[in-house]
């Protein structure tokens, strides 16, 4: 956020620290580089030069310890579910989860098969569902914008609740 555009040159901006932190958080959503199945290819395209998520501060990290967002890109089966849960637990707070594609949302075309988890929300809490099989990178981009909106609105709700109490 270009602060000087809001405040003018050499001026002061009064802001709640958590609002400032949330602004920083939603503009640097680092996701865990963790592709499970087909959707991972579209996730890689999203990081590629045409869609270039880097311009939103959305960049991949190889380890859960440095990530803010987990994109579950693919079918989660019962063997994989333990790993997904463990990776989610290894991520530091605050953290968010995007269920990318039909499989991660509901089980998708494989939901008839008993080995497949019917949506990753049975394993970890999901913030944004992106439909599609696989979703286009534009759809994932829209999902990220929804997540940014969610982060913004929750911090504002929290502040409003505190004002009401005061």
């Amino acid at each position, binding site marked *: 956020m270009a602060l000087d555009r809001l405040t003018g040159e050499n001026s002061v901006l009064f802001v709640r620290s958590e609002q400032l932190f949330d602004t920083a958080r939603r503009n640097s959503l680092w996701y865990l580089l963790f592709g499970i*199945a087909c959707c991972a290819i*579209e996730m*890689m395209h999203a990081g590629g030069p045409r869609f270039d998520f880097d311009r939103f501060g959305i960049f991949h990290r190889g380890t859960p310890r440095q990530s803010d967002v987990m994109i579950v890109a693919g079918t989660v089966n019962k063997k994989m579910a333990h*790993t997904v849960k463990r990776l989610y637990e290894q991520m530091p707070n605050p953290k968010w989860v995007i269920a990318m594609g039909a499989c991660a949302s509901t089980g998708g075309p494989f939901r008839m*098969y008993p080995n497949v988890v019917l949506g990753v929300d049975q394993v970890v809490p999901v913030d944004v569902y992106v439909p599609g099989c*696989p979703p286009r990178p534009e759809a994932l981009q829209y999902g990220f914008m929804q997540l940014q909106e969610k982060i913004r609105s929750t911090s504002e709700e929290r502040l409003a609740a505190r004002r009401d109490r005061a």
Partner: protein
Amino acid sequence: MTADQVKRAADAIAAEGTLVAPKVPTGLRRVPGGVDALATEHLVVNMGPQHPSTHGVLHILLELDGEEIIAAEASLGYLHRGIEKLAEHRRYHQIGTLLDRADYVSGFHTEWAYSMAVERLAEIEVPARAEWIRALMSELNRIASHLLWLGTFGMDTGAMGPFLYIMRDREALLDIFETVSGARMMFNYVRPGGVVMDFPLQAEPLIRAFLDTWDGYLDEYHDLLTGNEIFRPRVKGIGVIPRSTAVAFGMTGACLRGSGLPWDLRKTRPYGPYAELDFEVPLGTTGDNWDRYMVRMEEMRWAARLARQLLDGLPEGDFTAKVPKVLRPPAGEVYAAVESPRGELGVHILSDGSDVPYRLRLRSPALFNLSVVDEVLPGSLIADAVVTVGSLDIVLGEIDR
């Protein structure tokens, strides 16, 4: 491939002898003289299922002595989602949707293998135009698949740059796929009997524009990686798969040709229009990572030349045969295979005469190619394991199915 070449290859395999035992070092202690305090212990490391270099959800158990790998074992099943079983409950026209998601990087090849099997079973005559469209899209898909491999292989060896470049070309290819089939990845375009809709007029200039720039782009990749002084020592002489091992493990595709065996289904058992086309099969010599890399790079060049031949010679006519809405092939058994970017991708169908297959099995080339890690990784360093696994070009969706 001529009969002479086959005989020479067979002789070479016979000369190399049979499979050797895994190279497990016998002495566990590094320090001689019985200094127990300094003796080393073996460490078991789980590589994956979440690891940026395992290309999906592969899990390899590595037993290490220091930096050296003593034993390796691939653990599969993290993406098992029952594609073969679900196919037993789908009608013949609906199965393509599932098989697209098996090998999600080269959908046209999987669809083609399946359609070929159904056509042989139901004795459907496919129009020439349909076969040529299939081959054209398959060759473009081969470039797209190899490009994805090139980007990730670059990342495995520590080069981030090629990944960003290949995405530029892949986007151009995906635009072509979208124009032709309507989807970027899950095409479901090749159906039993032909293709689902005719080759659109607006696709031809797109393909020509891509092919015109392609050779220059491929040279650019050679500039980025092939001559790179950091890249070359990471791949040359590393991960050597002798020809006898490659054959014993049933490896196919670029991994087998990297070991020097000229086996390409497009040449050895020509299907579709490949008998009428003019192309060569690039070969390696020693079977190390470098050879597999060079074979794939050359395959991309030949795939583009094939695509140009196919586009120039695209025959007129119907794009699909007359196929009933509900296909009930006669009872029987059939196997059909195509040369996918990873190797021999086969579909085996057992029919009982009903509208669904009694059993459908996929012969997944990446599974056979991957099985060699138990044999090849022991003796190498842990950093080289990443490169060797990367050079096999695996797709877990197809391995686990």
